[in-house]
């Protein structure tokens, strides 16, 4: 097993046990290298979020992982068989080794607790040895790291803008210095300019702290810009996998090509867009 791989999923299948059963993820294998950004691209219903939840053991009934293996190669040595974790072991694994940033920051932060309390919660649970002063210091450090003024610690989530809330979520995901961060559409709900700032921040933190990222989104052009490797999913299966460059310059699957052409280029060609200026409407005024 190559040592630069941090998370490895083999032959993972996940089924929603409803009538009739839905096979949301079908025999998916992927490996995440240390410090890399792996893009997981696909449209709604392709299974990308289900797969991410499976990797982090967050699946809730009726979703069941019916087959497969997920192994985390811990940087402290030793392999963790994620699928067989139970009870306290699972509790220690989550957030500490693999953390997650969800799409809707308003739904994932508690509306009735201050930012300080929520950051402290992570630390009291996972680092029981820390004193209150140390926790405060770490919380302030984390907020500074993601570009939020530590003075905002006393704020409730509704007093923060969407971009700041998402930054707080990222601070929380960084709290325990995880090896893998799974980001599920972390910027989709944000305005583009804010989105850009956060993406830049994520890239910088990755550079400085060296964690690996699984970045889930439907925005293939964004992934091509930021990811090292990209996996394209369709109906629960991986249809293509390659470096960002391969996916962009030389896509192999029809579906990847279709996804790419769905985004007309800002400055270049029209992609799948048929509109042509017909005399009266083009170019004048």
């Amino acid at each position, binding site marked *: 097993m190559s040592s630069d791989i941090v998370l490895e999923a083999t032959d993972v299948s996940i089924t929603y046990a409803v009538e009739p059963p839905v096979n949301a993820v079908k025999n998916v294998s992927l490996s995440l290298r240390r410090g890399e950004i792996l893009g997981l691209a696909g449209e709604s219903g392709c299974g990308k979020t289900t797969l991410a939840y499976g990797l982090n053991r967050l699946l809730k009934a009726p979703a069941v992982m019916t087959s497969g293996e997920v192994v985390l190669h811990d940087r402290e040595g030793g392999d963790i068989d994620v699928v067989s974790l139970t009870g306290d072991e699972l509790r220690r694994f989550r957030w500490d080794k693999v953390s997650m940033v969800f799409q809707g920051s308003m739904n994932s932060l508690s509306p009735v607790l201050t930012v300080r309390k929520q950051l402290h919660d992570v630390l009291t649970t996972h680092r029981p040895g820390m004193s209150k002063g140390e926790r405060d210091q770490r919380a302030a450090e984390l907020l500074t790291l993601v570009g939020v003024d530590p003075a905002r610690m006393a704020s409730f989530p509704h007093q923060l803008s969407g971009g700041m809330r998402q930054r707080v979520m990222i601070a929380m995901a960084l709290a325990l210095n995880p090896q893998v961060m799974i980001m599920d559409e972390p910027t989709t709900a944000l305005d583009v300019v804010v989105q850009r700032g956060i993406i830049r921040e994520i890239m910088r933190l990755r550079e400085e702290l060296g964690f690996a990222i699984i970045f889930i989104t439907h925005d293939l052009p964004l992934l091509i810009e930021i990811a090292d490797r990209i996996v394209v999913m369709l109906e629960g299966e991986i249809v293509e996998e390659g470096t960002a*460059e391969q996916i962009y310059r030389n896509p192999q699957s029809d579906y990847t090509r279709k996804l790419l052409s769905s985004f*007309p280029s800002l400055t270049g060609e029209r992609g799948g867009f048929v509109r042509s200026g017909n005399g009266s409407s083009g170019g004048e005024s």
Partner: protein
Amino acid sequence: MTDVHSEGSLEARGLVKDFRLRSGFHVTTLHAVQDVSFTLTPGRTVAVVGESGSGKSTVARMIAKLESPTAGQVLLDGSPSPERGKALTDYRRQVQMVFQDPFASLNPFHTIAHHIERPLRLHNPRMTAEEAHARAVELLDRVRLTPGEKFMMRRPHELSGGQRQRAAIARALAPGARFIVADEPVSMLDVSIRLGVLNLLADLQRQEGIGVLYITHDLATARHFSDEILVMRYGQVVERGPADEVILNPQHEYTKALREAAADPDRLGQLRDEVRHASAQGAQ
């Protein structure tokens, strides 16, 4: 922007909208839209681009008469848009809106047939049930929900997001719209079906001479889909001009920032290298 003949046009002239916000006894005024003007003409698309809170949807709602302007006017064929009565009904017949969320804009209790036949018969009181049915099928075929007959008896939940948005467009066409105000018509749809819906609007615009006001936050589709672009921020138009000009050669800082922020696969790896370089320097 050149002046257009007022005949056959829909013009927004100096639109202003203030909202009064009340919290306790304290009243403040939010200037949602400040002095926005543009002209829609048949067969042409004007895009209003901006982020959330820029006032772009308020502009759309004023054009569709869902909101009345604090100051300024909307003129159809040169005459001020009516405020009430039959004249307002007649205005609405000609200016229709397509909303962002196709899950919320169609009534889950009613069939697609109901959604299309109702505006047909409301605006053509003498139309018989058979005629309305035939025309509705035609309209569904027109928006490529084919065969139309098959979709008539379906309810919204039996349609995908893209199909629903097509049904919403058919509904807008039903009363005989000359102008369509499309407020983020594809932002809630899956990426691979977005272009299909935009291409449909582009077809209608080109083939049937419909004037389209396209409200969006997406610069790329605004560029390819429209003739003229207005960039809005904090209720004001900060830049306007022919679509290619505004996007390829932006003058205003804000337009440049928007452009910079849009994902561009051609910048493959560039951001990573930049960030890497910056942190290497910071570490020294």
